[in-house]
C-alpha cells in the first residue's frame, strides 16, 4: 500500500526540538508528495488522546507519534493499532505499548558525554544540580541515567538539588535555577536536560551574578541554543539529529505501509557541541 496522509501528533510545539522535527517531517513529506496533518497537545496527555482519535477519523495511513506526557503514552498506540494504522514513535516510547518502530537519540550515552564534559571543566569536583525534563518521559529517564553514570565516576561531585520541569521550557529553567541558587549558592555544575532549560538556567545565573564560574550543560542543539553557545552563554550541549529524525520517520512510515520490516528501535547519535565546533551545526543542522 501507499502512504498518502500522515498524522503527526506532537507533544508540545513550544519546545524548539519538537518544532524542528515537525518542520523536518513536513519538508520530507512534501518532497514525497505526502500530506501531513499536525496536532499539538501542548504537553497535555488527554488532549493528545483526543487529537489522535481525530487523526484516525481522517483515515491517516500512518501515525508519527511523540507522546505528550509520560503517562498517557500507551493509549494512542492501542487506538492506532485498533484502526490498523502503523505507529512510528519519536523521541519517547511507552513500555506497555511500543510503536512499530522507535526513533530517538541515544540519550544515555550523550547525556554521559555532556556531564563528563562539564564535570571535567569544573575540575572534576564540586556541587552539582540537575534540572530534569518532564518526569518519567523516555528522554528524562535516559538522560538522568547517563549523567548519573558520569557523576558516580567522579566522587568529588555532589548532587545537591534536583527539580523537574513540565514543559522543558526556558521559563521553567530560569525559575528552577533561581530557586536552586537561593538554597545552594555554592553550585559549580548544572546539568539541564534540554537546551530550553539550560538557557533559562544560564540567564538565572547571570542575573544572580555569582562569585565563581558555574558550568552549564544542556541537550538538544536548539536553534537559539547553538547561537548562545557560540556567544559563551553556556558551555556544552548534545546536538540531536532532528532533521534526520524527521526524515527517517517519514521513511519508516512509507516502509511499514509498504510491507517492509523495520527495526523496533533505532537510536541515533547526538554530537557533543561546544563553542569550538558549534559553527558547523549553526550552518547546517543535522
Amino acid at each position, binding site marked *: 500500500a501507499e502512504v498518502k496522509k500522515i498524522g503527526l501528533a506532537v507533544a508540545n510545539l513550544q519546545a524548539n526540538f519538537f518544532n524542528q522535527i515537525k518542520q523536518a517531517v513536513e519538508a520530507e513529506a512534501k518532497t514525497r508528495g505526502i500530506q501531513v*496533518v*499536525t496536532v499539538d497537545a501542548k504537553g497535555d496527555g*488527554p488532549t493528545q488522546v483526543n487529537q489522535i482519535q481525530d487523526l484516525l477519523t481522517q483515515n491517516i495511513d500512518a501515525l508519527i507519534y511523540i507522546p505528550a506526557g509520560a503517562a498517557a503514552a500507551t493509549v494512542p498506540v492501542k487506538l492506532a493499532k485498533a484502526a490498523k494504522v502503523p505507529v512510528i514513535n519519536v523521541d519517547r516510547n511507552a513500555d506497555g505499548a511500543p510503536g512499530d518502530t522507535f526513533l530517538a537519540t541515544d540519550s544515555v550515552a550523550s547525556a554521559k558525554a555532556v556531564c563528563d564534559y562539564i564535570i571535567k571543566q569544573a575540575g572534576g569536583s564540586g556541587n552539582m544540580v540537575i534540572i530534569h525534563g518532564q518526569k518519567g518521559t523516555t528522554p528524562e529517564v535516559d538522560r538522568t541515567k547517563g549523567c548519573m553514570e558520569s557523576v558516580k565516576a567522579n566522587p568529588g561531585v555532589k548532587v545537591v538539588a534536583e527539580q523537574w520541569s513540565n514543559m522543558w521550557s526556558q521559563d521553567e529553567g530560569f525559575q528552577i535555577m533561581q530557586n536552586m541558587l537561593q538554597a545552594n549558592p555554592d553550585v559549580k555544575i548544572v546539568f539541564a536536560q534540554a537546551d530550553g532549560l539550560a538557557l533559562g538556567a544560564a540567564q538565572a545565573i547571570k542575573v544572580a551574578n555569582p562569585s565563581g564560574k558555574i558550568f552549564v550543560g544542556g541537550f538538544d542543539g536548539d536553534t537559539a541554543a547553538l547561537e548562545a553557545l557560540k556567544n559563551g552563554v553556556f558551555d556544552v550541549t548534545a546536538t540531536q539529529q532532528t532533521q534526520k529524525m524527521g526524515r527517517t520517520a517519514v521513511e519508516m512510515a512509507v516502509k511499514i505501509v509498504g510491507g517492509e520490516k523495520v527495526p523496533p528501535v533505532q537510536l541515533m547519535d547526538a554530537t557533543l557541541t561546544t563553542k569550538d565546533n558549534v559553527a558547523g551545526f549553526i550552518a547546517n543542522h543535522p
Partner: protein
Amino acid sequence: MVAVDENGAAPKARNPLVFLSGATGPLLGLILLCLFLTFASDNFLSLRNGLNILDQITVLGIMAVGMTFVILLGGIDLSVGSVLALSMMVMGWTANVAGLPMGLAIALALVVSALCGLVVGILITGFRVPAFIATLAMMSVARGLANMITDGQQIVGFPDWFMMLAIDRHFGVLTATVLLMLVVLFISWIFLRYRAEGRTIYAVGGNAEVARLAGINVSLVTIGVYVACAVLAGLAGIVLAARLDSVQPSSGLGYELDTIAAVVIGGTSLSGGAGGIGGTLIGVLIIGVLRNGLNLLNVSPFLQQVIIGVVIVLAVGAETLRRKRA
C-alpha cells in the same frame, strides 16, 4: 447530593425545549457549527466521529455538571483540575502501590475529593473566604498533594477491565464512561429541576439573604454544592485514568477555565441563580465539537487557540445580545 427518590417520577415537560431554559442561543450556535463542519469536512458527520466526540467530552462533561451547581450558587471553583489530579493519584497509589482492590481505590479517591470540597465549603461559609480565593488555594494545595503522593511520578498499568471502561463500545455504541457521563447529566438535570434541594441552589444563587430569611440553611447548601463539585471532579479523574490507562499528578492543568467556559457558554449566569444542566450539555458539546472540527479541518494548532477564543466570545456575546433585544 445527586440521589434520586425512587418513588418520584419526573413529570412530563410541556415544552420539548424545557430542559434548555435559556440556552436556545447556544443550541442554535451548536447546530450552525455542526452544519458548517458537515459541509467543510467529509469526516465530520459519521457515527464514528460522533462517538469519538462523546468519548472526548466525558471528562469535561462530568466536571461541568459540578461546576454548574457551583456557578448556579453564585460561586466559582478553580480547584477542579487539581482535585481531578489528586483523585487520580489517590486511586493509582491505592491500587498499584498499596495493592488494594480497584473498587476500594476508586471509593477512596472520591472520599478524598469530597474532603477537598468540604474544606472549601467550610472556608467559604465559616471563614468568609471568597470562593475565588478558597478554591484558588485548594487548587495549589491539591496539586501539591497530588505531586507528593509519588514525588511527581506517574503510575501506569491498571487492570484491563478498567481501561476497557473507556474503550469498549457496548452494543457498538456507548462506552461505560460515556454512559456514566450521560447518567450524571440526567440525574443532575432531574435533581436541579424537580427536587426541593435543587431549587434551593437556585434560591441561594438568586439571593443568599432572601434564602436565609426563608429558612434555608445557606451554609449547608453551599458546603453540599462544593462537595458535589469536588466529587464530580474526582469522578472525572477516574474516567480520565481509565481513558489514559495511567495517572499522573500534572493532569488536569488549566481544566478549571475550560469547565467554567463550558458552563457559561451554556447560558448559566456567573452571578448565580439562572441557568441549568441542559445549557451546560450544549456548552460542553460546543467546545468538544469545535476542537474535533478544528482538528478534522487541519487547522494549525496555534490558529486553533485564536478560533476557540473567538467562538467563546461569539457564543456568549450572541446570547447576551439576544436577551437584551428580547
